[in-house]
């Protein structure tokens, strides 16, 4: 205690902190004294001698500190067990910092570390506790992700509905087309976009559908690229502006550019010329104004609409059975049977 007091006098900053801690202690003491008097635990404030109240205050500080750590961990993880472990983690951090501070103070003042640590008691508790609380909190924050998942032991909290929607995959681009993706076309005659499309003076009425960034075109095989017939309603689901040119109840023949097995839906390159010339397609717009919003685009088509129209060979892939499938059979006495 003497060593600490001496160093506090020598170091203005340390003295400031000591003063701050004393102020905090007095404030807490006052707050504690009011209910004690009110509930009859002490008749007057004067009954609360410093020798009695100091240990109570120290205990209160410990409790507050533990609650603070638990609250931080609990708010981050929303899990009571993690909150409790967060309190423990906070205290561990606190004592590590406490030790480091002791080393720092003792080296600055030329005092033995043990003396410094022993001297950091009494009124300096408030200072120490506050410093540890701040430091511990700062150290805890980087563990936010760990806390959220309970150090990998619990599930992450459910995202808000808006966040969930934002993370949903969509073909629709959220920004204007940047041109970083080059669309590969396989049949020049069938896939050339209408000339008017390139010179379209206005932006499309709907976002142009683009393949996902991780899109990998399947290596084309014979007969894969071709035309498939899908209900007009499927086209309209992706391309509402085709409404004037299609009759919903009739199938439309479109060009199937790629199949993406990794996705639920296949991806096809819709050529507007095909719409116009489709059996169910309507008449091509007569003037350029009507044609302005028409662009060739990617459309999503569930495989259920085209798998029967694509040669089965396309879906045959080379399969190499794993080693455990080639192990010799083991004689068994029985197997599970439905008996009830």
């Amino acid at each position: 205690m003497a060593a600490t007091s001496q160093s506090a006098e020598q170091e203005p900053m340390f003295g400031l902190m000591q003063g701050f801690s004393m102020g905090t202690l007095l404030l807490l003491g006052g707050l504690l004294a009011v209910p004690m008097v009110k509930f009859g635990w002490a008749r007057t404030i004067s009954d609360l001698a410093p020798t009695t109240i100091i240990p109570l205050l120290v205990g209160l500080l410990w409790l507050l500190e533990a609650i603070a750590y638990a609250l931080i961990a609990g708010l981050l993880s929303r899990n009571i067990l993690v909150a409790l472990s967060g309190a423990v983690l906070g205290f561990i951090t606190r004592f590590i910092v406490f030790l480091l501070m002791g080393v720092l103070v003792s080296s600055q003042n030329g005092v033995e570390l043990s003396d410094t640590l022993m001297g950091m008691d009494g009124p300096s508790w408030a200072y120490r506790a506050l410093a540890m609380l701040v430091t511990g909190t700062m150290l805890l924050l980087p563990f936010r992700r760990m806390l959220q998942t309970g150090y990998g032991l619990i599930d992450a909290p459910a995202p808000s509905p808006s966040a969930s929607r934002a993370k949903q995959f969509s073909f629709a681009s959220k920004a204007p087309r940047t041109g970083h993706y080059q669309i590969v076309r396989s049949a020049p005659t069938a896939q050339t976009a209408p000339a008017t499309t390139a010179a379209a003076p206005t932006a499309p009425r709907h976002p142009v559908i683009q393949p996902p960034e991780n899109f990998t075109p399947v290596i084309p095989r014979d007969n894969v690229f071709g035309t498939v017939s899908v209900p007009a309603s499927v086209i309209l689901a992706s391309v509402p502006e085709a409404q004037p040119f299609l009759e919903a109840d009739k199938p439309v023949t479109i060009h199937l550019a790629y199949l993406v097995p990794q996705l639920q839906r296949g991806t096809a390159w819709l050529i507007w010329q095909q719409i116009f010339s489709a059996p169910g397609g309507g008449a091509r717009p007569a003037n350029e104004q009507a044609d302005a919003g028409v662009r060739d685009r990617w459309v999503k088509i569930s495989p259920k609409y085209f798998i029967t129209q694509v040669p089965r060979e396309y879906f045959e892939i080379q399969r190499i059975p794993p080693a455990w499938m080639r192990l010799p059979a083991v004689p068994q006495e029985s197997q599970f049977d439905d008996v009830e």
Partner: protein
Amino acid sequence: MASINYATREINCKLVYYGPGLCGKTTNLQFLHQHLNRGRRGEMVSLATPGERTLYFDFLPVEMAEINGFKVKFGLYTVPGQVLYNATRKLVLRGADGVVFVADSQWDVMQENLDSWQNLQDNLAGYNVHLEDLPYIFQYNKRDLTDIAPVWYMEYLLNARGVPYTEAVALDGRGVFSTLNILCRFVIRDLVHRFETGAF
């Protein structure tokens, strides 16, 4: 990882039913629980929400056969299929000796099948386990519905290694026992092989 108790001469294996939400994993276990001989199965433990969604896992202990004087017991587990519960799924998957991937045959949930399949591989990779080394089979469930993908298309989507598969209607029990029997056969083969090669 299977455990062998030499004192009681028992082998305990863990089989996990994996798959997307509402694909029928729990239904598989419920059918097994209802139709297995009482002497060969224990009580089913199910931690579910009021809406019958698996919250943590289902567990059904069953006893199969004696092999070389050892009684083989299987612990059947299901995982919660909902995307949020990945930590639970990963925990349940730990130490699995075999996996049944229950795929929903409906067209509308094909993407969920793929996501769950990828999730299974990711979670196994977290334990440094590869599907090359872990017996697993596919069960294409809900084959009685109308808007379903043909089996060959699901094979194309999911079964890149050509492992065994079954077609099932878990609600009626169709394919439920054959799924379990096929997987158990491969798990036992793998177990015996590892035991013989000293890899156990």
